[in-house]
């Protein structure tokens, strides 16, 4: 049903080798607009390596990453963000010494339209842009129910809220594709349920595509429309959640033969 549409993200035979180690080989994925795709696999399978290649942290040694027809290979991380791919990290990376709202505002830097002179002379444009910035940041925080903590230091937030703030920060970059690296790691079931709600809200509101790495199977099976499974850098299965759950190769990779 989605065949007529062009995919938002397309990778063609994506691969990377570190010395003699083939970390990821022949990785092909198509993500369409508004879709939520899960990427799962045992520890060390190369999931985060895929993320790093998609976001420009690693330069793929083979294949290409194409976002809306634009080749992303060889772009620097900040250029990839400008093209429309934002990510969160497996181990939370917030700007710890900055307040919650500043964390979000910092991510809008590239879309903040005033120059040095405006900042030095505090022109009306500066105040207008800053006011819009505050409103936009507060809007984003409100989705994650963080607006009451806007002025707290990011490092003082509880763990679950730090995760949410990281997603809010990624959303602030105005992207088309969001890469979430284990957003539910270390969360209790209540927090995971809240997170699920947030993910659904942002999908509805922004119409973005999401690629999700997760170990929490209940989350993956619940929200993902399609799932790709990799093991030792190779794609071993991809398809609908029900198919994946029954796939003998996947079961073998997770439980051993």
């Amino acid at each position: 049903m989605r065949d007529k549409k062009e995919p938002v993200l397309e990778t063609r035979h994506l691969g990377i080798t570190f010395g003699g180690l083939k970390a990821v080989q022949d990785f092909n994925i198509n993500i369409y607009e508004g879709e939520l795709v899960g990427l799962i696999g045992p520890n060390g399978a190369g999931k985060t390596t895929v993320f790093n290649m998609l976001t420009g942290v690693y330069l793929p040694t083979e294949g290409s990453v194409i976002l809306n027809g634009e080749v992303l290979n060889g772009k620097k991380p900040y250029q990839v963000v400008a093209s429309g791919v934002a990510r969160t990290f497996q181990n939370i990376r917030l700007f710890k010494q900055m307040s919650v709202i500043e964390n979000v505002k910092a991510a809008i830097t590239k879309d903040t339209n005033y120059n040095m002179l405006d900042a030095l002379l505090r022109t009306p444009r500066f105040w207008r842009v800053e006011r819009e910035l505050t409103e936009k940041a507060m809007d984003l925080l409100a989705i994650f129910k963080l607006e009451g903590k806007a002025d707290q230091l990011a490092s003082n937030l509880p763990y679950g809220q730090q995760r949410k703030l990281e997603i809010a920060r990624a959303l602030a970059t105005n992207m088309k594709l969001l890469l979430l690296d284990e957003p539910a790691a270390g969360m209790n079931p209540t927090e995971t349920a809240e997170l699920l709600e947030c993910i659904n809200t942002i999908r509805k509101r922004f119409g973005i595509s999401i690629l999700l790495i997760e170990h929490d199977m209940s989350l993956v099976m619940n929200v993902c429309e399609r799932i790709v499974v990799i093991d030792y850098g190779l794609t071993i299965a991809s398809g609908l959640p029900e198919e994946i759950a029954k796939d003998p190769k996947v079961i073998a990779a997770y439980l051993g033969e």
Partner: protein
Amino acid sequence: MKKSITKGYIINIAVIAALMVGFELIKSATGDSQTFKLILVPSLWQCCYLIILAASLNLVLGFLGQLSLGHCGFMAIGAYAAALISLACERAGVFADKSSFSFILVLLGCILAAGILAALIGLLVGIPALRLRGDYLAIITLGFGMIIVNIINNLPFAGQEGLSLGSASASLYKNGLGFGTASKVTFVWVAIIVTLICLTMMFMFIRSKYGRAIKAIRDDEIAAAASGINTSYYKIFTFTYSAFFSGVAGALYACANATLSTSSFAFTNGGILNSTFIVVMVVLGGMGSLTGSVISAIIMFILNYEIKNGIWVKSLTGFLGGMFAYPMLVYAIILIVVIMFRPKGIFGTYELSLVNLIKDIKNYRAKKSKKPDKKEAK
């Protein structure tokens, strides 16, 4: 929101005006005394350039999170640029003596030119140096600082054969920027105004998208890049911006001294203008607090002055007396004590704001009175 901003501007300007009036009152009351002419005014000059220097390093060290040990090099560039331009202007007959109006223009022009030249060199140094991080950046900036000082030293028209020689330094004093006692008193407003403008420019910088971007880079460079911040651009920009103010500080230094010698900017110099000394100032005041840099520059200046000139130092005997014979040892101990008991410096990342001062004090008191309660509850 808009109202509180206007209120803030009015309060700040009022306080600055009050301080200026206070200074004028002191001047009219004690203007003829030796203490005022020979101690207070020269101290004010020194404080002014130290404040600018410490604050400019804080941009790089406290807000950008990169350790630079080369800021004295930029200061040297500023000092020599200002001095040489002023001499050239005198030779070209732009101003006849220091009382003429055109001299003020030349003076301000020299300060600006010094900043711009230092910024240009800062840009050239920053582009390759900021590819490195942490200790490596510290080493390379230290090297650049030394190279700059040595180049100046060997230039035919500056350095050893130029401004530090007797005759040439006399000409700086007579014909250029070097101020004598009387001119220092006359032009002290220049130092104060330039300092205020520089501090304002730095505050405006950190309270804008630029400040947010560089603080993000300080906290987590990978995450900053993943949030769409062009990290190398903002790093080089901040380094250049900071070098500009170091250059301005250098120009003020050239004004406050009748002679210029490259040895006073050298890394091995045991005096107050040592790149490590400025690092101590920034760490003492708080990395990430311009207020802290201002206060600690003043504290360190007074300390330095007291160690060198204080009568009480001479009365110290035994171990203490021995220690105070080596001022650098005292600064090192101060740094160790500060890091042990207040790792974030005196002010941490707190910025003084006159509008919020009363609110901040109330919050602080509330926090203090709360703490013992918590212990009891446990």
